[in-house]
């Protein structure tokens, strides 16, 4: 207990601290220096010219109305600007980004008739800001060589394009190599991307995650305009040296390298491979991605192991092929995103649907199909707060490898999420409802409903864009087929429904470097609840 206060302080940071994609703020550049305290006096009001002056007004009625304007001209209210012939395009302010990269996003060319009211002009500015390469973008026109001709000038202010996509830091309940439970183990990692490599517009990213005897590495290359088309091309290399823990503190293991009676059975595996893919816009707010993945997996785990499942003893399925195996999949993901902001949205929705198919006819040792659907809706409440509702459902048919299955830590806020597919924590679900979900760490069916309430605390326009307090509450379910057709013995009635609750509270902080979450859930998760450590039903 002497560690209690220290753990309490640490807990704020223990929650997975994912830094989301960097918020793209599409308004104009902020001044380099904030306004000084002694700002100039505000302008005097113009005199009133109609009616009776009210006492206390700045001055009485005097002075003529506006007189130095030309007589009104007849024009359509929606098209007051002239049209020009575009003589050329000019890019200014780019020191590292190639001009041709900027011009990729400009849908005008010399010879076009340019209507200054064309909404494409404003969209071009937002498109360029949306690349993340620039702190500010301004479009303007200047005269061409002949009357009626103009040159479109694109002024850019480049920004730091190194973005922190994710940060993981925390502690987890771990297991030592012999299978004995350890009280705590630290884990950490980060994902960083240079979004404009050498000014080419190509993104180069790297990520690592590390824990006791676990390491995950990623290198990613993405071209948002592959071969000057509207296709996004992406490739990633991965390496994982991972392990995972099976059982609930009373496993029986048959393996010459591991004691027979241990708390947990340990599987160790290495993955090496990668994926290549492409994406395409399907309108303003929708995208589709396709990818092919190929990996080699080397796995070792006990020759045999068993554990209690309810009141019965059953063999442990390690969900991997012993020795060397190949994983080969085709995937498709559809995204529809209408959020007003990526990290602290106040309205809009996001829909992500995914399909992965194991290509067993082409050499994959893991024939399976995985379907996932995640839908989120953000609602701005009249009193300024934000309500977010989210639903998730997923199912896997076939023999998916361990790291592709649904993991309880990804559903519960009270356990660490996986980072780069590494699972850091040995514990099952907290099991607040005393159901048989305590028997399940990995499942082939998962669902979750979650509601989050956010209170904006601060809004800024410089290095910290926003700080919100949030509180969330959710219910989730995780099961394998056997948990549905033949549930664990010792559970009756509603306890046979593998359902649990989750909650979190803390701060969401949107910064120039990315978004960060500081939650208390992981600290709360380290306090055992009934049935969590050894299962609710045991002989």
């Amino acid at each position, binding site marked *: 207990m002497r560690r209690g206060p220290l753990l309490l*302080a640490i807990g704020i940071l223990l929650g997975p601290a994912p830094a989301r994609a960097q918020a793209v*703020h599409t308004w104009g550049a902020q001044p380099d220096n904030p306004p000084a305290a002694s700002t100039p006096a505000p*302008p005097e009001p*113009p005199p009133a010219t109609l*009616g009776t*002056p009210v006492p206390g007004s700045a001055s*009485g009625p005097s002075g003529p109305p506006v007189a130095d304007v030309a007589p009104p001209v007849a024009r359509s209210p929606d098209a007051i600007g002239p049209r020009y012939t575009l003589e050329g395009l000019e890019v200014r302010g780019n020191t590292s980004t190639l001009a041709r990269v900027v011009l990729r996003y400009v849908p005008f060319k010399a010879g076009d008739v340019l209507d200054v009211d064309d909404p494409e002009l404003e969209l071009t500015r937002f498109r360029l800001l949306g690349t993340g390469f620039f702190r500010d973008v301004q479009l303007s026109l200047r005269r061409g060589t002949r009357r009626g001709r103009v040159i479109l000038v694109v002024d850019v202010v480049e920004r730091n394009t190194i973005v922190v996509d994710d940060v993981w830091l925390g502690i987890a309940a771990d297991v030592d190599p012999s299978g004995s439970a350890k009280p705590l183990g630290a884990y950490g990692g980060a994902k960083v991307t240079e979004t404009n490599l050498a000014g080419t517009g190509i993104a180069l990213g790297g990520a690592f995650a590390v824990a006791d005897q676990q390491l995950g590495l990623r290198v990613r290359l993405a071209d948002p305009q592959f071969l000057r088309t509207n296709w996004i091309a992406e490739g990633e290399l991965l390496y994982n040296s991972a392990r995972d823990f099976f059982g609930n503190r009373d496993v029986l293991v048959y393996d010459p390298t591991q004691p027979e009676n241990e708390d947990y059975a340990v599987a160790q595996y290495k993955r090496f491979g990668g994926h290549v893919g492409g994406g395409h816009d399907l309108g303003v707010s929708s995208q589709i991605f396709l990818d092919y993945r190929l990996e080699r997996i080397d796995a070792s785990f006990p020759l045999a192991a068993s554990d209690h499942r309810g009141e019965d003893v059953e063999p442990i399925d390690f969900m991997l092929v012993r020795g060397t195996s190949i994983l080969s999949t085709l995937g498709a993901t559809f995204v529809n995103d209408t959020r007003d902001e990526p990290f602290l949205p106040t309205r809009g929705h996001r829909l992500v649907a995914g399909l992965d198919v194991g290509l067993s006819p082409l050499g994959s040792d893991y024939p399976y199909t995985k379907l996932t659907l995640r839908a989120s809706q953000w609602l701005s409440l009249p009193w300024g707060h934000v309500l977010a509702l989210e639903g998730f459902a997923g199912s896997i048919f076939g023999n998916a490898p361990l790291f592709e299955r649904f993991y309880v830590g990804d559903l519960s806020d009270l356990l660490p999420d996986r980072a780069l597919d590494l699972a850091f924590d040995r514990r099952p679900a907290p099991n607040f409802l005393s159901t048989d979900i305590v028997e399940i760490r990995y499942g082939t069916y998962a669902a979750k409903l979650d509601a989050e309430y956010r209170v*904006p605390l601060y809004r800024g326009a410089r290095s910290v864009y926003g700080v919100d307090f949030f509180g969330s509450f959710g219910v989730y379910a995780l099961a394998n087929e056997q948990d549905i057709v033949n549930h664990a013995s010792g559970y009756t009635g509603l306890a046979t429904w593998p359902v649990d609750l989750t909650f979190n509270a803390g701060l969401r902080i949107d910064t120039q470097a990315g978004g*960060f979450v500081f939650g208390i859930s992981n600290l709360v998760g380290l306090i055992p609840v009934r049935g969590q450590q050894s299962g609710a039903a045991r002989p």
Partner: protein
Amino acid sequence: MSTPRLLALVVALVALAPLDARAQATPQQQPAHPAALAQRQANYAWDGDLLRASFSYRDVLSDPASMKKLSSGLPVVIAMRAYVYRQGEDVPVALATRVCRVVYDLWDEVYRVHVSEPERERDQAAVLDGVLRLCSEARDLVVARRAALVAGQPYFLGVVVDVNPVSADVVEQMRRWMSRPTGSTEIGPADALFGNFVQLFVRQIATSDKTLTFRTQSLVP
């Protein structure tokens, strides 16, 4: 790094991160209530049953970046909303709006201005000073009918001026608002531009190239 040292580092990071956010919060924050906005003078006048106000927001276009943008040859929109607040309350009782759209004609060297006001839309050609008068001053703007105000109670205007609002919806809503009959400036909960002070003056900040907010001195009808 040993576990205790790692934990100490974690604690230090936890302690520092929120402090950093608070330290930067002060100069950016908007006040919590409309009465605390920076004050500037306005001229009020009764035109029969209508309360008219005249005030200036020329400083919204006074910086070099805004002046440069005005002469860029591309449209610049200056959208002004004047909310009528009863002293001590955060929910406005009425709204008056004004939208100005300016395009500099590069070859004729003249600014073409389209002004949308209540019950009136007009196009004009102007030189720069004319643009500033047309687009950054409200003259005799109808802000409320006498019946919408409680006699003896102080009222003031909370003004938001946006240069190039990002959301075209806001501008469109303002245009629709201006199509109402003269003096129909009262706000109801169902109105699109309705909201409390935090929504209107705090959350919408930074949704345009530049935003100016201020209040006027109080008026007792």
